[in-house]
């Protein structure tokens, strides 16, 4: 049950992050839109974007699977182990989102992935 939840969390998180990054880059939220008076309008705008709605659906799956995982495992296991997605998402950011992943960034992502694996031990 524990590892099934981890797989569901990682898979849905990867899909949600790719969709969010893709869509948020297409129409960037300006810093001014984060002011309290303009927040409602900004949220309405976000709710009308199809890829974001699908991303939130995947995040909801990830959220409930995470709740289940927290009820059967330690916090210090549950949080790090779900970060297995870091390495996978960095590769997909290069291939799908066409981000410029420099050597420093690959090295950083690799260090983080190793660190997360060690934390999960």
């Amino acid at each position, binding site marked *: 049950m524990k590892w099934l939840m981890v797989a569901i969390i990682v898979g849905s998180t990867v899909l949600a*992050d*790719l969709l*969010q*990054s893709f869509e*948020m*880059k*297409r*129409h*960037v*939220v*300006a*810093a001014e*839109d984060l002011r309290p008076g303009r927040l409602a309008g900004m*949220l309405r*705008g*976000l709710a009308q974007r199809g890829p*974001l709605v699908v991303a*939130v659906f995947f*995040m909801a799956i990830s*959220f*409930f699977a995470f*709740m*289940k995982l*927290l*009820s059967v495992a*330690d*916090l*210090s296991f*549950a*949080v*790090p182990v779900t*970060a297995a*997605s*870091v390495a996978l*998402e*960095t590769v997909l*950011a*290069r291939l799908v*989102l*066409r*981000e*410029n*992943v*420099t050597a*420093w*960034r690959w*090295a*950083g*992502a*690799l*260090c*983080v*992935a*190793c*660190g*997360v*694996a*060690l*934390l999960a*031990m």
Partner: protein
Amino acid sequence: MQVSPGTRRVDLKTKLLTAFVVSTNVLGNFAMSWGLKHQAVDLGLSPLAYIRLIFTPWVLLGTSLLILWLLSRMTLLGWADLSYVLPMTSIAYVFSAVLGKVFFGEQVTWQRWLGTAFIVIGIVFVGRTAANTTKQEPAR
């Protein structure tokens, strides 16, 4: 989307938003975990049990913080690359491990401290790169 390698610097608003994303994530996970550890609820596959649990005080606080985390992270993903945001916000895993030790008495072994060091080194590496390497369209 065209690549324009590493010319844009990480500005203050991106740094502040990154800090906000990390804080809401750490505190949200902590509150959720605290609420779940102090509830004698058997979570099966019934959605009702999850919904009932969401409205308990600590889980509700955790859920609210995680909604804030979701929205702020979404905004951050518009300002910075996914391959930048992921490692930079990974410091949240370190804080979660520390909170797990301090408040829940969870065991933090030498492997976990080594893992923490790796994550910090990774963040330093990624911190040397530009936050955004793809061209953006103006906000609507």
